[in-house]
Each structure stands twice: as structure tokens, then as C-alpha cells.
């Protein structure tokens, strides 16, 4: 998963089937219509296959916004 914020947001747009440029980062996950188990699994799978970082669902539960997901991916990436 790209660590550049803009690229990350564009990728999340695709995962959530939103027009490119929709997400700004401050959106609450619980308010995003397509944030479901499929998109969650996709997020984990892409983080792993693109960046080699392992994110557990438990860690995602602590995320409230799209920006939190980015921080999680960045933190895991820099830690790995």
C-alpha cells in the first residue's frame, strides 16, 4: 500500500468504490457505506502484498477514521 498520503487515499477510494479524490482522510469509517468485511479484508491483504506489513483486525478496530488507517499502515511499515 503506498505510503504517500494522496496515493493511499486514492487506493482507499478504489477499495470503497468511490470516485477518485472523494476521500480526504477525516471521514469516519463507520459512516462510510462500503466499509464492510470485504473492504476490510482487502485493506489487510493489500497492506500485506504491497508493503509486506501484517495488520490484524484487532488493530483496525482501534481506527476511527481513514487517516487512522493510513497511520496504522505507516506505523507498521516503518516498524517492519
Amino acid at each position, binding site marked *: 500500500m503506498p505510503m504517500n498520503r494522496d496515493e493511499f487515499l486514492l487506493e482507499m477510494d*478504489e477499495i*470503497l*468504490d468511490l470516485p477518485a479524490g472523494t476521500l480526504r482522510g477525516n471521514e469516519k469509517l463507520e459512516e462510510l457505506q462500503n466499509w464492510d*468485511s*470485504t473492504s476490510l479484508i*482487502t485493506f489487510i491483504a*493489500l497492506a500485506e502484498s504491497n508493503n509486506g506489513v*501484517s495488520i*490484524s*483486525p484487532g488493530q483496525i478496530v482501534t481506527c476511527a477514521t481513514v487517516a487512522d488507517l493510513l497511520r496504522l499502515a505507516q506505523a507498521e511499515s516503518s516498524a517492519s
Partner: protein
Amino acid sequence: MTTLPSDVLKSVRFPFVVADILRKRQMMKRELLKQTNLVPTRIAILGGSTTTEVKSMLELFLLAQGIQPTFYESGYNRYSEDVQFENPDLWNFKPSIVFIHTTWHNISAFPELLEADVDVEQRIRREMGRFEFLWEKIHAELGALIIQNNFDLPGLRPLGNLEASESFGRVNFVLRLNAEFASYARNHSRFLINDILYLSAQVGQAEWFRSTYWYSFHMAVSPIGTVALARNVAAMVKSVYGKSKKCLVLDLDNTLWGGVIGDDGVQNLILGRDHPVGEAFLDFQRYVKGLQRRGVILAVCSKNDLENAKEGFSHPDSVLKLEDFSAFKANWDPKPDNIRAIATELNIGLDSIVFVDDNPAERDFVAEQLPEVAVPNVGADVSSFAEVLEQERYFEVEKVVQDDLNRSAYYSSNAERSVGQSRFSDYGEFLASLEMTAEIGPFAPVYLERITQLINKTNQFNLTTRRYTSGEVVAIAQDPSFITLYGRLADKFGDNGLVSVLIGQVFDETVHVNLWLMSCRVLKREMEYAMFDVLIEQCQARGIRKIVGTYIPSKKNGMVASHYAGLDFRFMGATSEGGELWGYDVPATYSPRTRYIRKTADTLLATSPSADNESVASEA
């Protein structure tokens, strides 16, 4: 930027990027749904683990095959209970296909350490009994075709290599169970194995099962593994609906051999075991030969002088011989023109063709000019050609039936028929010279696979283009309220195999012909007259006084627009779906229309309704 369904189709072709598919699946689905002429199907996924991801990916790959599924999804690990206790939601869903997505996690109990062989055997019988109960209930009560996973291997091996060799070992146990599943598949129709043992090895055991997904979501297969699984199941469903390809069109230079035959000469071609690249060409030829032997039609499309091109097959190491090809185009015309000519010559649709060429410019040109033709991105390295064809699963079949083995021989002898035709000035004289014999009768168990295959792939001589699953075909064959007819046609050049199918439903003294089709192999041979003659005999025997035929126009069946008029039916009116109804009063005395086809004794035997009904029932 706008994405077209054709762009999406490219992105699900091998080699593809799994991450792209995962990320863009919603957009891809939306675009693929814009395709026209999608074939609907109803699939029940009965899961031994979470199946959300399986459903999502399967939908995507089915849409890419032109099939639009509606799904039923069992609750988590409710695959057995749903069937055993007849979940009304499942029963009301009336699936055409039941996909049982079980994995090694669903083996109820592995053998104990040092368990005696006889007890392990008992354990296998119990496990088989549990599954056979489900399969038989699904077949008997839902009438659906079953796609059943075999078992992948457990990720951990507490006994190390002994897991494989000891009868109580878990690897050994899984492999024995898989052999039992395979045996059941060999002996039962409408039952197909989804070979996840192979898929897990192909993806890599460590990638196939990831404990993260198991413990977090109870997914028995990782998202990456699920992509492989869904592609495989979609290919199987594609074959059930007769959407597999029929013909492989091949370039020659640097595709079937190394070098350019026109420049290098046959003696300098790179082909054979004495050269590393030559060995790769040899192995690709062997792979192609294997496809040809199981019924894939081969054709050549090469920019070459004809005689030069043919000479290549005289190379001592060439596994492929000239007679393996049913059409041969070697000239300097554009390849799309030649491929069109091949389709016409073989009487097949362009959408039945796969084109393989090492030259990317030729591939692009054909793909652009003939979007119906499948043009895999085989690259320029012969060592990957077969793998790409394999990965695309173009030629997936439900079963190999005798007619498949005869198909190439048929297309080759068709050339002889054409030569023969040119010797006669009168077409009737030509037909008489063919010495044709037909076997026509009610659906017989031995032909049900082929009948289903024809029903689901015939587009041109097909009055209604109605598709039926194998389960529906079996049910119709057993139902006395239907008249069913199959027709086989042979001539002095060979056996054309089973080429025509008719299904009529009887209401009092009227039969409604719901389906009437014929393979284009035998157009203009009066086989439709032979079928009609037997239909009349059946009607007379059953006291049926009227035949109502339906014609539903499609993009491909224009050739039968006047079929009923030609048989002296009268137009009755239009149907609400844009079809036409045609009526025919069955006369008390009838003169057969067939002039050049002799019906065999088998036909008379087969048309005895009582004998046939018993034989179908015994199969079921």
C-alpha cells in the same frame, strides 16, 4: 477516465495482478454488468468456512465469462445442516448449481496416533458417508449440479514426513479421502470436483492458508488463494454452460517451432530434444497435440507460402502432423481475414476461437479487429505458452465424451465431403452419395452429457436458445409429460455424433416444442426433416394432434427464422417476449420428408417410450 468492460476483461486475464483485482473489484463488477447477453445462473454456495470473499470473487470471474450469477450463501459452516434439514431458503432458491466449499478444516476427525489400518478405513467410510448423503440429497431433491471441493492439506505436520506415509498420518488421510471423492465423481454425472489440492500447490501452501484470515474471519483460504479458487470454479461453470472454446488457431514460425521456415528451411528449424529452446517448442507441440486428442479443433494461421508452411510439419521431431489441423491458412493476407475464413470453413463462431501467436503486433491486430476471438498474452517465450493457455482454462470440459474424441476426425473428413460435393451438379445426388444414417430417439442416459453440452453451446440452429442444466435435462428425460429426441448422424465419411436435440412439453393433445437445435456441422443435410419425421411418429403414437413451435429471435439464430414456415407450420402470433408461435396439425397419415437419411434400427428401438423411460429411470 472511462473504463470499458473490455478493459476489465483484459485485467482479469492471465497474467494479472491479484492486488489490482482485490482493490478494483467493485468497479470491475459494475462495468462487467454492463455487458449484454449475460447468461443467468443460480448458485448456492454451501460453506464449511466463511464464504463472503468466495462469493465476491466468483461473481467477478463469472461475469468475466459472460455469466451472471444469483447466489444463495449458507451460514458459516452450515453446509451440512442446510441440506440435511432442508433449509427452506435453500429449497426455495432452486439452485442450478450447488458449490460445496469445504476444506481440510471440515474433516470431522483425523485418525488417532497409531490407529489401526482397519479403523482408519472405517473413518474414511464414515466421512464419505457423510458427504455422499449430502450429494445424493442435493441431486435427488434439488436436481442441481454439484461442484465439490476436494481437500487441501493441513498447514502443520506434527508427525513430519510420517504424515504422508503412515495410514494414520493426516496428509495420507486427506489424499485417501480425495481419491474417494474422485472415484465418486467418475461414477456420477452432474458431480464435479474443484481440485483445491492442486490449486493450493499452485498458489503455494503458505500463501493459500493464512492463519491471520482463519482466526480473524474463519476464512479457510486467503484472499489470494480465493482468487485462484474462484477462477477455477468460474471455468467449471463456464464449461457447464457450454462457453468453453472449441478451436485453437496457431501461428507457425516461433510459435510451433523456432525459426522462420521460409528463410531457414525445415532442416534448420529449432525443434527437438537436442536444443534447449527446441525442447520447449517440442513440449508445446505435445501440449497442443493433447488438446487435439481430447477434441479441441486445431487450425493454422500463418504468414507464409502455403507449401513452405506445410513442409515444417515434415520435420522429424514435429509431434504435430498436417492431418491434425482441420483448417490451414498460410498466405500473406491479414490474419483477422484468415481467422474469419477459418471460422466460416469450420462452421464455428469467432467466439469459439483462441488465437496463439508469438508476435505481439499480430495479437493486438487480431484482438482489435476480432474482439470475439480470445487472444491470450502468451508473450514471446515458447516455454510459457502452454502455461498461459492452462491458466486461462479456455478448454475446460465437464467430461470428455466420445464425441469430443471424434470431433477433429469429423472436421478433417468434412474437407473430403466438400471435395465430394463439388463433383455433383445436383445437390440431392450429393446427399444421396453420402449414404447417411440417423439414430433418433428419446434422451438416453448415455447421451445426457452430450445433450446438455449441445443445449448450452448451440447458438445458430437453435429455435429458442433456451439453456438447461444437466439436472434439468435429467429431470425432463424422466418426465412422461415431455417428448425428448436426440439425433445422431453418420455418413460414409464417418460419424458426426449426436447433432440434434428436441424437447417438447405435452399439454393434452398438443405438444409445445420448447427447444429444437442442431449442430451446424450437419446443416443442409435434411437432418431436421429426419427429426421432424420422428416427432410426428411420436405424436401419432401418443394421440397428439397439434404441434406448437416457438421461435425466439437472437443475434445468432437468424438462419432458422423460416424453419417452421419451411415445415408448413402456420404463423399463430407473437409472444410477449418478442418470439413467434407457429402451429402444425398432425395428420392421420404422414409421408416422411426425409429423402436421403436412412433411420437405423436403433431409432425404432429408441422410440419405444416404455423402454426408454425405464432406462433413464435406472440411471437416476
